[in-house]
């Protein structure tokens, strides 16, 4: 009987604790805000840290610019970024800590896997986010508050197919079956090729790898060389793409290489053994003569001592878009809750009259689904 009483007591105590916890969960985290808080997670350390650090730097530059111009009606902005090492679970816990720090709007996560879990958490609290660079389809499918700056994977894969068939007749494709970015691009590419009446193993040849076999590409490259391909389409990231380029050079297979925005950064990984032309779809060209881009590049180089990449520009644009949308929505309460802010921003972004001229595209507009409409451009890597 004594045991029974103990159990009952324990259960009651536990229930009480849980009730407390739920009550705490409803606390108003933004009540003490003195600035508008924009939050984000991204890989600041580890293999993908190049992307996270770039976004962080671009975003910080935007925040600085906004604050130097007096913020929004005199209220300044602050930016919080949590290191998620490109891991989905760390992005989810990072989200929670940001939310509890009073985050009111977000630029989501930098990488797709992380951003999907970030989006799932954000949807529950009604937080609006504008991811700079998470391009997987599922990132903005979670709900009405999910938006992005960059192209979606499907948009790029389709575009690549259209471009490549214009010039080439035998396209060699390699993709990473263990990576959602690469698989998403490839699937859209394949779908578009089918639509264009191109046949697999006649007009294009496909080989794959996984993250366990992402170092040695001798098989894929020599098979594609044997098939007589006149171009290589590499829908994955620059580290692996650089290895493919070098392997191709080693095998005297110097056909042009074409990729998507993941190839941004490949220039530093190539040496003079690679003579093939490398080009990729990107919304941001660091050497563009555009005045806004020049100003951004100069400011970035002055502050960080290196040229910005596409991710830095995306990060800058993401923060600026949130700021411009808040301005357009007439936000005038520094303690506004994240959900209330989202309700104000959503109609602005998708309303059709709001257009943003950014570094990564002019006249950007957003669909109700959250994807960004803008013109693509192809950059050829300058090797001199």
């Amino acid at each position: 009987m004594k045991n029974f009483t103990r159990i009952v007591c324990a259960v009651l105590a536990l229930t009480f604790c849980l009730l407390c916890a739920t009550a705490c969960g409803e606390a108003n985290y933004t009540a003490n805000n003195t600035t508008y808080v924009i939050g984000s997670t991204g890989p600041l350390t580890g293999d993908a840290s190049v992307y996270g650090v770039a976004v962080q730097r671009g975003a910080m530059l935007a925040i600085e610019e906004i604050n130097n111009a007096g913020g929004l009606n005199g209220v300044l902005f602050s930016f919080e970024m949590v290191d998620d090492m490109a891991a989905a679970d760390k992005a989810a816990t990072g989200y929670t800590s940001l939310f509890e720090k009073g985050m009111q709007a977000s630029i989501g996560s930098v990488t797709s896997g992380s951003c999907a879990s970030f989006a799932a958490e954000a949807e529950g609290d009604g937080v609006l986010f504008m991811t700079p660079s998470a391009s997987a389809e599922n990132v903005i499918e979670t709900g009405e508050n999910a938006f992005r700056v960059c192209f979606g994977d499907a948009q790029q894969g389709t575009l690549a197919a259209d471009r490549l068939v214009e010039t080439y007749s035998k396209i060699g494709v390699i993709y990473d079956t263990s990576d959602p970015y690469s698989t998403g691009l490839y699937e859209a590419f394949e779908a578009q090729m089918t639509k264009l009446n191109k046949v697999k193993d006649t007009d294009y040849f496909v080989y794959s790898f996984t993250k366990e076999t992402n170092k040695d590409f001798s098989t894929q490259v020599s098979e594609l060389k044997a098939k007589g391909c006149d171009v290589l389409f590499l829908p994955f990231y620059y580290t692996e793409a650089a290895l493919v380029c070098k392997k191709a050079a080693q095998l005297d297979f110097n056909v042009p290489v074409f990729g998507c925005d993941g190839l941004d950064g490949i220039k530093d990984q190539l040496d003079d053994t690679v003579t093939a032309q490398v080009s990729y779809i990107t919304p941001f060209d660091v050497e563009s003569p555009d005045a806004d881009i020049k100003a951004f590049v100069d400011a970035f180089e002055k502050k960080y001592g290196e040229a910005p990449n596409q991710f830095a520009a995306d990060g800058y644009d993401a923060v600026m878009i949130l700021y411009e949308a808040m301005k357009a929505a007439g936000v005038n309460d520094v303690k506004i809750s994240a959900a209330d802010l989202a309700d104000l921003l959503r109609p602005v972004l998708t309303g059709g009259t709001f257009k943003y001229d950014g570094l990564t595209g002019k006249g950007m507009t957003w669909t109700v689904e959250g994807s960004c409409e803008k013109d693509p451009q192809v950059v050829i890597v300058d090797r001199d």
Partner: protein
Amino acid sequence: MNTLINGLCLGGIYALIALGYTMVYGIAKMLNFAHGDIIMVGAYAVYTTLALTGHTVPAVIVAVIVCTLLGVLTERVAYRPLRGASPLAVLITAIGVSYLLQSVSQLIFGAGTIPVSIGNWGTLELMGISISISSLLTLGLCVVIMVGLSLFITRTKAGTAMLAVSEDRAAASLMGINVNGIITLTFAIGSALAACASVFYLMQIPAVSPTLGAMPGIKAFTAAVIGGIGSIPGAMVGGILLGVIEKVCSSIPVLAPYTTAIEFGLLILILMVRPTGLMGKTRREKV
């Protein structure tokens, strides 16, 4: 045909690494999980020397010296004090050494991937197919090294002493063999082989990163187990088998995503049929 040569070439690299695992296991009765990271250190040594001198030959020599010293040093500092300790303690120490090496390289060279160019000698047209010269060189040198090692073990005094220690450590020490010396020698040879492997690895995959040694380390360990851990010809056969399977699988588009699964599936299959590996000895425990 090209796939086969690529596979043999990769297999040769695996075999060189697997030899390090298998020799250390045979003689010191421990699994040196830091072995893969010795390759990584070798690769960074090659990269640094290349950046300083610009020549391949000194880079190879420096890598071999650095790896040999590192192998001997880890044996002295980390493993010798634990001789006679439980195998589990030694195993955990080895994993610790592995993380230590990775973290130190990350501190020195950063976490990113650094491109290295070694062995860009173009291709050779042979019987209608073009083969990269560095692949042929890798294949040839792997065979030379393996033959050399076999001769060393069977024909020299130190080699036979190694065999004796692996047969029975206590008896060997009674016969006047310096067991500690032999174990140090084993680590030195194993690490020198790892240095050679790192050079060949860089010829095939021209980039270094702190986690470079992890995957070849695991693959080579698998190769050593498939061949029968402790058996030197076993490590060679296992390595080449694994390399060829990996390359053949990745050349068939349908199988490519399952390459790693097939390799480790094979390991399980072989261990089910022959628990001691292809060339392992079955040893009866006497009570």
